[in-house]
């Protein structure tokens, strides 16, 4: 049979040619996967933290004080920093998706430029947010 000699059909997502990726990283691809990563971080870390924060407020001043103390540890700061980056990243790449949904911004140069802007703007907004939080 002809079929038996054919290599296996590619399956989606088709990422590898043998041991090697058959594509190179570009800003738009990085934004695309970071949209998923940041959305997952917001869902699995951001939402539970929001619920625990509300729970600590309901429980009273003592519980709230230990919650606030936990956010000021090195680990707490790191987690909140990552979650806040995920918020700004997901917001910007989400806005980019709204534009793409409208059928705009697919030209190679435009697409690459806005992807780069988002990759730079999200960390900048995160740092600005923390400067405002910590400077009060």
């Amino acid at each position, binding site marked *: 049979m002809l079929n038996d000699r054919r290599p296996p059909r590619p399956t989606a997502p088709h990422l590898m040619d043998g041991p090697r990726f058959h594509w190179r990283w570009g800003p738009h691809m990085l934004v695309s996967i970071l949209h998923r990563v940041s*959305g997952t971080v917001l869902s699995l870390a951001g939402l539970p933290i929001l*619920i625990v924060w509300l729970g600590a*407020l309901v429980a009273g001043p003592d519980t709230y004080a230990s919650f606030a103390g936990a956010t000021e540890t090195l680990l707490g700061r790191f987690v909140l920093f990552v979650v806040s980056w995920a918020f700004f990243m997901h917001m910007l790449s989400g806005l980019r998706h709204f534009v793409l949904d409208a059928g705009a911004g697919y030209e190679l140069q435009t697409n690459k430029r806005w992807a780069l802007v988002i990759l730079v703007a999200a960390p900048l907004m995160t740092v600005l947010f923390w400067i405002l*939080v910590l400077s009060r």
Partner: protein
Amino acid sequence: MAANKGTPIGRAINLGSAHHGVQHWLRQRAASGFNLFLGLWLVFSLLMLPDLGYATLRDWMDGPIPPIALGLLAITAAWETRLGLQVVIEDYLKGADKVAALSLLHLFAAGVTASGLYLVVRLIADSR
């Protein structure tokens, strides 16, 4: 039945749309629109407060907007979580793993909504 014969594409062809794709797509956009505004509202509200201490936050919760907006956020954020992570799970997992992960996801989203609404009601009920 003849419909069960042939390749997967041969069976699917000429059947038309399943009429589920657009609904999921639209709901995802609706949820993300709500979360865009509610998320920005939360970030700016927290930045506008003089501090994030217990007394300040409980005073803030006495107003009508924060509990309503936080209750809405518990619904719409869990909604987007459910729709968004559903797509991620469907892309990377297959068979029983996929079913198990989707079940856990539904439970997680329902749990976030229920506990968020419960806690907001408690915050209102406990205020002076």
